């Protein structure tokens, strides 16, 4: 064999490294996929047991309003109506997102458009700091500050959806803000220039071009914040009052999927109906986080097509 051919056929060190690297990467990915699948399988098998093992009707589970897995009604069907928690979870999530969105976008506009230098110097470290605070601290502040204030203003115990909303609002604000900042920063400079050159004031440029061009990113930020709010357990549990009742107003004790889960899971026996019912709640949570994920991806893809 002539030497050139030989040299071409001999595997180079780089090629071998490349191959080994790809193998390691593949292994890591497989492991992650395995873990995710295992989690889904575990939660689903437990969560579905409520329905096929304990014979609870899925529709009843989603729409009945009495949550008391220990007791059975006259037909011998356990009282596992998850609607109060589902409603509670959605209410705190939606309210928190509704309140946080204008603040977050306002702050993001200030940091990127109005005063980038000062904004970045002050707001950026602040948001990063806030993201790092553990949720128990938020819950504790909620318990000692927010709840008493609500009690004084509206009477009652102070615990409830409103207190949960306040705490979640503060918790998701930094995340939503910094993601909104990234979304606004990603709007190319030439859009701003072109708008100004067409006679737009800075404010017109912001709301007619920058916000519109950043819309997919902003929506992603909001949905991300909602996903975080939906899944937050500890802080909410500390201020919501933990009564699995339909919330009739914003200042009466209520519950969320997560708060019922964290409170209950240690006090039930594996395999019992009480335990299975909690796993069913966990399954709802898991499916919802999947939905949030899909929404984010969907928005991302729509945005990608547009620009």
């Amino acid at each position: 064999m002539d030497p050139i051919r030989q040299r071409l056929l001999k595997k180079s060190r780089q090629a071998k490294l490349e191959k080994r690297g790809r193998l390691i990467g593949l292994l890591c990915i497989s492991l992650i996929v395995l873990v995710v699948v295992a989690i889904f399988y575990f939660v689903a098998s437990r969560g579905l047991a409520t329905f096929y093992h304990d014979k609870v009707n899925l529709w009843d589970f989603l729409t009945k309003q009495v949550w008391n897995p220990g007791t059975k009604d006259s037909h011998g069907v356990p009282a596992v109506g998850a609607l109060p928690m589902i409603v509670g979870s959605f209410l705190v999530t939606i309210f928190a997102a509704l309140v946080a969105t204008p603040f977050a976008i306002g702050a993001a506009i200030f940091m990127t458009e109005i005063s980038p230098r000062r904004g970045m110097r002050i707001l950026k470290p602040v948001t990063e700091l806030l993201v790092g605070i553990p949720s128990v601290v938020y819950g504790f502040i909620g318990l000692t500050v927010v709840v008493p204030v609500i009690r004084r203003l509206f009477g009652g115990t102070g615990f409830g959806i409103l207190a949960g909303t306040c705490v979640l609002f503060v918790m998701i604000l930094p995340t939503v803000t910094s993601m909104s900042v990234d979304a606004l920063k990603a709007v190319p400079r030439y859009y701003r220039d072109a708008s100004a050159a067409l006679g737009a004031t800075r404010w017109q440029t912001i709301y007619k071009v920058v916000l519109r061009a950043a819309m997919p990113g902003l929506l992603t930020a909001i949905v991300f914040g909602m996903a975080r709010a939906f899944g937050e357990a500890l802080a909410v549990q500390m201020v919501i009052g933990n009564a699995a009742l339909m919330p009739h107003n914003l200042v009466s004790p209520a519950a969320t999927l997560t708060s019922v889960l964290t409170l209950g899971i240690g006090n039930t026996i594996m395999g019992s109906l009480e335990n299975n019912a909690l796993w069913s709640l966990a399954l709802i949570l898991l499916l919802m986080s999947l939905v949030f994920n899909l929404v984010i991806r969907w928005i991302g893809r729509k945005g990608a097509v547009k620009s």
Partner: protein
Amino acid sequence: MAAAPIITSRDVHLYYGKHEALKGIDLDFNPQQITALIGPSGSGKSTYLRLLNRMNDLIPNIKITGDIRLYQQDIYASDMDIVQLRKEVGMVFQQPHPFPFSIYDNVVYGLRLAGIKDRAVLDQAVETSLKAAAVWTETKDILHESALALSGGQRQRVCIARVLAVKPAVILLDEPTSALDPISSSKIEQMLVDLKKDYTIIMVTHNLQQAARASDKTAFFLDGQLVELNDTVNFFTAPAKKESEDYISGRFG
């Protein structure tokens, strides 16, 4: 062309911090003419062009001295309305990037800013502007689709239509064809020549042939100074300055 100049500038200096990017520019522009600004990159062409509709205002640490007038009105006077100025002096950029909206929304952007909502007026403006920008036939059936789906040359012409819709007196173009293929470039060049009967056009270009073909006057910038302003024919056949001759014969830049 004995018409009075529409824009005059006298002894214009511009400093980016300590760096003097323009070192005393005297330059006038006549209506219904295309003036080409040429010169090596970094010579201050864009900087000068952006002065004419005050696009430099927001740059930090910038210092501008001298006198620039539009219709004899000092555009850097304290009571000058920038929004009005930019409606009179439109600008087209190098990158052919319409807004991420529909073609229609792009073209009427400036009109909507001015508060015009009448559908008939907007429709009419869209048609006239796209026609003037020579992109009507390609777009008339897809007006409500995203402008980003068009080709580069078509997008740049939509950007030009977007400026024309506001009915400016002056159009500034900063290397409008340098991101485009030769065929799209020559279409835009031809369109500019057709437009000049209604507008004052000032165009930065790095393409000497383009300057020679399309412009009436050529202004040669070098290192922050205006070396020569001449009728284009004279500039390219018998330049008055040694530097100009060196530049057009490719000896530097």
